């Protein structure tokens, strides 16, 4: 599955548009990490636990996006966009969407 956030795929031609595909996931971090983050809020610096958590969720959302595209029979997803929102204290939603297409070698 080719995933790209451009409107065109270099060297390939888009033959069919299959419409919007999306993937999302809501994750919360565990209390231990929250306490560590509270301490970090005094000292400053990177929150490695959160960075990992968010990139894991992003991978999960991308996974769901490409699964959905696969069921539509697409071989690429273009124009991919990410969106993050914190829906409650300690939980955030990662949403990713794009256009499923079929591309062929030119």
């Amino acid at each position, binding site marked *: 599955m080719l*995933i790209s*956030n451009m*409107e065109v795929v270099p060297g390939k031609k888009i033959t069919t548009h299959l419409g919007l595909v999306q993937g999302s996931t809501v994750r919360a971090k565990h209390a231990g990490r929250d306490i560590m983050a509270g301490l970090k*809020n005094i000292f400053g*610096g*990177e*929150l490695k636990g959160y960075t990992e958590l968010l990139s894991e969720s*992003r991978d999960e959302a991308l996974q769901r996006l490409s699964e959905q595209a696969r069921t539509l029979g697409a071989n690429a997803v273009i124009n991919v966009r990410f969106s*993050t929102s914190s829906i409650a*204290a300690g939980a955030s939603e990662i949403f990713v969407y794009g256009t499923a297409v079929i591309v062929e070698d030119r």
Partner: protein
Amino acid sequence: MGQLLVFLTLLALGYGFGRLAESRHYRSIIAREDALRSLLVMPDRMPPIHFQNHGSTLVTGSVVISVDYFKTVAAGLRGLFGGRVGAYESLLDRARREAILRMQEDARKLGAEAVFNLKFETSRIAQNAGQGLGSVEVLAYGTALIPVHGR
């Protein structure tokens, strides 16, 4: 009296460690930016014709950076008078540059020559305190163009 002591200790800890973390981070950012300068990153939507036979794939880089206690207090005071909030400016600057660097490192691992259509996504992660800024997450993403051998 006791409360004031706790406040001043937190302030001093935040100032000391926050400063240290920030200057160390800036040094690392500048060194890595120098090393990755050959990998082009552009916000252009379309790649030039030169890249028409390259393979493409999505690359991302993200980072979560926390404020320190001193910054929180400084920004709170700034909120009373208005004006530039320098404490948060440097925080966001560090986060953005770090996210681009991680994206570039991701692209370099794939053997990419350039990254096009760079986009940013910034979100705040509220802390236990509720109102104030706890930490900030920045995601940078784009399409890496990878030379294909034999074409």
